[in-house]
């Protein structure tokens, strides 16, 4: 019955003229062409289109990624810490970049994606796979690139939005963008206040409300760009953010009153000079993070207070030069100073890193192929980091089939905590080193994109990470980080993105499935049963799918994601059950003269799935959100 209905529906769809419309991402001319776009040959890049970003403005980056992609987000609950597990690796193996500047704090090298508001960026890109040769330390699983790309078309845009949702969740955002052809300014503000007291089932099988999970967040991002005679581009960006959160514990613990405040200041200046055959970029950035954790336990020995301050100064100069029709050269130098101050270290931790890199891109326009070689050498605190070369090639294979391959060497240096946490840090740690290989086949049907567009991509990846760092007990008292594991991560990613038009309805249907096998290849002792077992918190199967329909200002979007079982013990004796989450979004934009009002209604976890992303940390069941956005 269902099948015949589907055939009928699909026939109906195809009978119509399929037209290209707003669902498609506008490929605007980018003045900020970057190494991400030009020298990542052979790697898979995924970019969220503007409509997706607009619909999910209210979400954090963690929410955006967990609903829109099959990438696993380890979330401790609504508003709580959320980190990324990419291609079977941990959060320390994924770099988060803001205008090309790595945000991962040097003490833990993992970024809390729940703190990053999606509405702050007009471009969010996900680079799958190892990119150490391009971006250096800590990009083994993948990397995420956040940007605000200036738009010098003369325009003024002002928008203000408010939202209210279940569990006393309120937020407000505002944005102002302006350009007179020479200047471009973008201002973004957010405010978020949530109690997050959602109901959940406790150990006694009774329903109770989550306590101590409130969140208050506000932030501002300001970008100013100046274009001079189409030759010089100057830019400055500033990002301030403050978050005050309560930190709820696991269901198996007594509920305590821990809180955490995170304050960050990030500033960036850049200059780009366009030349006849390329460009020159110089940029400098300052990053400051201030974290204050406090658990006021009544038992004195259990009371914990920790203040962590990290400061980063970084500068980079790069030159891009088109040698001839065939060759494009790129090279640069990057300097980074990281400092972390915390009572957990005996003295302030400092790291100076210099990275030198060069790339050669070779174009073969006659057969529609290109290939690149990237080399990068970093040098930190008087020692050589592992050399990271990469080779990539991509191009047309046959008619609508194209292919990509990439092979790279990558590394992750130990975090400050792993090195200096007193007295457990291990100063003898070596960097983790990996070899990553991947290949993709792309089947693109875009002969007549007005009617129908489809991208089907199948990617296989393989990587071997040596010297993998784990905190393991030396004795019952003492856990220490050691280069103990060898991890073999491999998998298959299958994705499909289709866009077509049925009558006047623009349709987008997409899905992505990931099979990720990530196993330990090293034995630690006689009774260790972790050899050849899947790493903890890496789902073998994950899926996300979306059906979106746009018609006369209406947007209907349904998202379905599936996360497979995740083991929580290294011998795979215990696991967390799989879960299915469905999200529904409905929005309607009303045009009133030159102004627009967008009304949006969302149902999250529509099937009311009870699940834990982290063991015994409850997640909310079905909940609702209502948003109004004024675009003036």
């Amino acid at each position, binding site marked *: 019955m269902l099948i015949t209905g*589907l*055939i009928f529906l*699909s*026939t109906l769809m*195809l009978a119509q003229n399929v037209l290209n419309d707003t669902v498609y991402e506008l490929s605007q001319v980018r003045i900020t062409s970057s190494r991400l776009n030009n020298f990542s040959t052979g790697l898979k890049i995924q970019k969220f289109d503007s409509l997706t970003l607009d619909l999910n403005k209210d979400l954090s980056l963690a929410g955006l990624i967990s609903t829109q992609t099959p990438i696993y987000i380890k979330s401790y609950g609504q508003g709580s810490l959320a980190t990324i597990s990419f291609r079977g690796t941990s959060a320390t193996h994924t770099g988060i970049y803001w205008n090309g500047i790595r945000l991962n704090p040097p003490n833990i090298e993992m970024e809390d994606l729940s703190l990053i508001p999606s509405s702050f960026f007009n471009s969010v890109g996900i680079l799958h796979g190892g990119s150490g040769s391009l971006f250096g330390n800590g990009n083994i699983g993948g990397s995420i690139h956040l940007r605000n790309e200036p738009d010098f078309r003369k325009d003024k845009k002002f928008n203000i939005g408010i939202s209210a949702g279940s569990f006393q969740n309120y937020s407000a955002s505002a944005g102002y963008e302006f350009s007179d052809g020479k200047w471009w300014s973008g201002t973004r503000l957010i405010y978020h206040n949530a109690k997050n007291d959602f109901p959940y089932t406790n*150990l*006694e*099988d009774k329903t109770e409300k989550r306590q101590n999970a409130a969140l208050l967040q506000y932030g501002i991002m300001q970008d100013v760009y100046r274009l001079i005679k189409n030759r010089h581009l100057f830019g400055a960006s500033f990002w301030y953010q403050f978050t005050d959160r309560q930190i709820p514990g*696991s*269901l*198996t*613990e*007594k509920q305590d009153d821990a809180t955490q405040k995170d304050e960050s200041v990030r500033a960036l200046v850049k200059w780009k000079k366009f030349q006849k055959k390329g460009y020159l970029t110089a940029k400098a950035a300052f990053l400051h993070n201030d974290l204050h954790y406090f658990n006021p336990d*009544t*038992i004195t*020995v*259990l009371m914990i207070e920790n203040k962590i301050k990290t400061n980063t100064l970084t500068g980079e100069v790069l030159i891009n030069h088109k040698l001839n029709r065939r060759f494009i050269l790129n090279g640069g130098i990057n300097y980074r100073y990281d400092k972390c101050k915390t009572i957990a270290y005996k003295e302030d931790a400092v790291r100076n890193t210099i990275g030198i890199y060069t790339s050669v891109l070779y174009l073969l326009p006659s057969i529609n192929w290109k290939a690149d070689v990237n080399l990068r050498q970093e040098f930190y605190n008087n020692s050589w980091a592992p050399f990271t070369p990469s080779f990539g090639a991509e191009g047309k294979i046959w008619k609508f089939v194209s292919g990509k391959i990439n092979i790279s060497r990558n590394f992750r240096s130990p975090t400050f905590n792993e090195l200096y946490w007193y*007295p*457990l840090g291990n100063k003898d740690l070596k960097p983790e080193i990996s070899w990553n290989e991947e290949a993709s086949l792309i089947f693109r*049907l875009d*002969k007549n994109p007005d009617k*129908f567009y489809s991208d089907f991509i199948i990617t296989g990846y393989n990587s071997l990470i040596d010297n993998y760092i784990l905190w*393991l*007990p*030396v*004795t*019952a*008292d*003492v*856990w*220490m980080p050691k280069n103990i594991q060898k991890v073999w991560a491999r998998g298959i990613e299958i994705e*499909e993105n*289709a866009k*077509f038009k049925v009558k006047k309805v623009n349709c987008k*249907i997409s*899905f992505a499935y990931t099979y990720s096998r990530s196993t330990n290849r090293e034995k*630690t*002792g006689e*009774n*260790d*049963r*972790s050899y050849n077992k899947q790493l*903890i918190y890496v789902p073998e199967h994950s899926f996300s*799918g*979306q059906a979106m329909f746009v018609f006369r200002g209406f947007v209907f979007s349904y998202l*379905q994601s*599936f996360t497979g079982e995740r083991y*929580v*013990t*290294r*011998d795979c*004796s*215990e696991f967390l*059950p799989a879960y*299915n989450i469905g999200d529904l979004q409905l929005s309607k934009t009303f045009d009133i003269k030159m102004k627009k009002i967008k009304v949006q209604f969302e149902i999250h976890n529509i099937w009311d*799935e009870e699940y834990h992303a*982290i*063991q*015994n*940390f409850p997640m909310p069941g079905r909940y609702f959100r209502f948003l109004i956005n004024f675009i003036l």
Partner: protein
Amino acid sequence: MKNSYRLYILILIVIILSGCKKDDEPPENQIQINITNGVIIVNEGLFPTGSGTLSLYNRLSGETNHKIYQQANNGKLLGNIVQSVNVFNNKVFIIVNNADKIEVAESTTMKAIATIKNIPYPRYMLEIDSIKAYITCWDNTVKVIDTESYDIIKSIPVGTGPEKLLKTGNKVFVLNQGGFDIDSTITVIDTESDEVIETIQVFPKPTGITTDKNNHIWVLCSGRGWNGIQLQDDSEGHLICLNPADYSILHDIEFPSKKEHPVKLVAGKDRDNLYYYYTGGLYRFNIDSINISTEPFIKRNMYYGLGFDRVNDLIYISDPVDYVQEGWVLRYTETGTAVDSFKVGIIPGEFYFMPKLY
């Protein structure tokens, strides 16, 4: 070409709409749990997100039942961290320290009876008479509870981080281990009046206590510091013998190294041999000798819990492996011969031998 589009969309929609259905978990086998003649292994569970479990080893069949509390109570979790158990008056008291509670279950069936809540970071429990029990708590008290009504009758202030306790006559000796801090005292409580009658100054970090054949008390003081790291103010361990009547120290044996700290203490069959962990494994000490051995009696790198089963006179050693997977129990005779080993739950920390023999 058009047909391929059609097929495409069809496949897409089928994939999108089919989704994945969660399988219902199969009901756990209801087994008859009889702990009266078994060994309970207390598994702490994953920290801080997991739940501790109890394993039951059946001496007759040689079989181990895992997660017996969950099995008897429809999968109900105990909480984090299960520190210890005590069985008396036909009840099993399960001390869950990071959850500030004690779960009470029927000793024959393991069915949950009650939860004693708001006990601040409880560690160990000791029965005093048919009703009264003492619980050491990390708010630096010993709570006196009524095991019928589950009320706290009294809170007795003791030293820092009280842990193990031992009753001899009408005195209870409480080891003030120091928690994450340091203490070097033993509090003596009179069981009639529930009052502190003495605070004995010993050496830093008293962690193990047992009695010998002469009814003397042996206390193992681990010394300041942690095994595995060396800090400047580390101090050496001491094994001391106390006269429970006048609290005088009869013997004081000093360990040779400040870097290594002896832990755990049990007495063997005739209570003339004591066992403890030290550098490289399990050591044996004969109470009639004055010297401690420099070589382990049983060599092992990983060890955690230690017990002595008076039913069949075997030494129980637990191996937590890496604390992030299921651990093991290894059994040895008092001559040091390995008997067998079996898998238990995550971080096996304590043993409870039934029936209770002294």
